[in-house]
């Protein structure tokens, strides 16, 4: 009973179930290899909303509502809503909360916010606080482009290392379970990352900036819990993409002789799109990337026993246009949650 503290970073839980999960995505994501796992696919980026910011908010609301509908719950039973997005002042998460009127814990960890939300939600539930927490995250390609890059219709060439901010949202309904039954999917552990900055300055190459943070958190998690990477069927990083997964693997090999992570490492951003055909360069990114890939694909893989245990490591680059224009390097963070299926 109660939270087990394994270190300042890592905590384990016995009673936090993920009762349902839902993912809503945009048209490009809906043409990707995971299309069949998403609950709803929009036919256009804006889906008849007046702006990309309003669309992003709607995307989140749809995912949250679907997660509740799936198990016949309604908003009144949700104690906390936890989550975040990429937009300044969290205007997707916060404005969505204006409608649902539930207590809100809005958080910013860039694209790492989904795992952070699951971790914090689990910690609160196991600690005897809220009984039911709705954790979610979202991003929209167009609103992220306007905030971080250029106007949509401006022509420019992306570099091969650039990520594609996904139009996607994912939400999970966490609740306290007295006892785990066969088939229950549960959050078993969380490791909160520290900020890691190894001097990357290129805003068009988040992989290189974030990979050391992902490696740091995975290693911390495994050390704290005395586990080997093979304990997990798969370790899914958030949005490191094609290059980032290779870099984490290389860091692991450098760290210790015999560390071979390549078979276990995978990445949500790399999985969300067909890298060869969909012209996304390094792969998907954005808070909605790990949120939708987990809530759509991975949660179902756990339910259907394709996977028994996974580690979700959402990765975030904590920079702003102001910080990189002033010549600062890019600080990054990764948060990990271990999710298991009970037999």
């Amino acid at each position: 009973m109660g939270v087990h503290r394994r270190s300042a970073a890592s905590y384990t839980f016995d009673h936090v179930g993920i009762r349902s999960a839902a993912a809503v995505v945009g048209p490009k994501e809906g043409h990707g290899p995971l299309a069949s796992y998403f609950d709803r696919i929009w036919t256009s980026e804006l889906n008849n909303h007046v702006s990309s910011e309003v669309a992003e908010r709607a995307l989140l609301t749809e995912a949250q509502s679907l997660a509740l509908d799936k198990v016949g719950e309604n908003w009144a039973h949700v104690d906390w809503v936890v989550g975040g997005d990429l937009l300044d002042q969290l205007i997707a998460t916060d404005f969505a909360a204006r409608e649902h009127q539930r207590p809100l814990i809005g958080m910013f960890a860039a694209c790492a916010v989904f795992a952070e939300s699951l971790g914090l939600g689990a910690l609160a539930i196991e600690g005897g606080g809220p009984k039911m927490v709705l954790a979610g995250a979202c991003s929209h390609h167009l609103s992220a482009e306007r905030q971080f890059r250029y106007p949509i219709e401006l022509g420019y060439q992306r570099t091969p290392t650039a990520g594609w901010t996904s139009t996607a949202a994912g939400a999970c309904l966490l609740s306290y379970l007295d006892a785990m039954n066969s088939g229950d999917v549960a959050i078993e552990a969380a490791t909160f990352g520290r900020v890691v900055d190894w001097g990357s300055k290129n805003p068009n190459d988040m992989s290189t900036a974030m990979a050391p943070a992902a490696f740091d958190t995975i290693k911390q998690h495994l050390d704290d819990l005395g586990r080997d990477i093979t304990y997990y069927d798969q370790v899914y990083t958030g949005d490191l993409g094609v290059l980032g997964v290779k870099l984490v693997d290389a860091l692991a090999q450098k760290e210790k002789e015999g560390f071979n992570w390549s078979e276990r490492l995978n990445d949500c951003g790399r999985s969300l799109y067909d890298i060869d055909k969909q012209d996304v360069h390094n792969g998907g990114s954005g808070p909605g990337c790990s949120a939708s890939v987990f809530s759509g694909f991975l949660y179902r893989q756990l339910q259907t026993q394709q996977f028994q245990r996974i580690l979700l490591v959402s990765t975030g680059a904590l920079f702003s246009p102001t910080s990189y224009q002033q010549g600062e390097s890019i600080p990054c963070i990764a948060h990990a949650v271990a999710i298991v299926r009970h037999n």
Partner: protein
Amino acid sequence: MGKEGARQLTQEMQDYQTMANQMRPKKPLLKNAVTAFFVGGIICEVGQGVQWFFMQHGMTAKEATSPTTVVMIGVGALLTGLGWYDRVVKRGGMGGSLPITGFSNAMVAPAMEYRPEGLILGVGAKLFTVAGPVLTYGLAAAFVVGLVRYLITGVA
């Protein structure tokens, strides 16, 4: 920028950056240069065609320059509005950005983009977000060159 923000990188971090540099996929420079040549070349050929059209209708080559520019800016704006010009630049790079159609794209794209924020603080304030640096330094350079010309030739 100031030293305050600069961080000392350890050997491990420097080694990592070296490794990442080696693993990073390279930009296809040769392919990009060739496509830029052809995309830019095609746009210039179209511009040449427009100029000939005006010359056929009785203008001198010099007189035809201004209406040709106007037509090409119009074409760039139209293609931007249709959502096609960004694809031209995606393939053609500088071949698409450098001609005046690219300048038109750099003006029309923000105008479309910031419309939801209103005519004053949206379109009005942000119209030059992309083209602004080009105009600023283009004008500054023009002043310097003009001054040099005046000092040498005496012609204002």
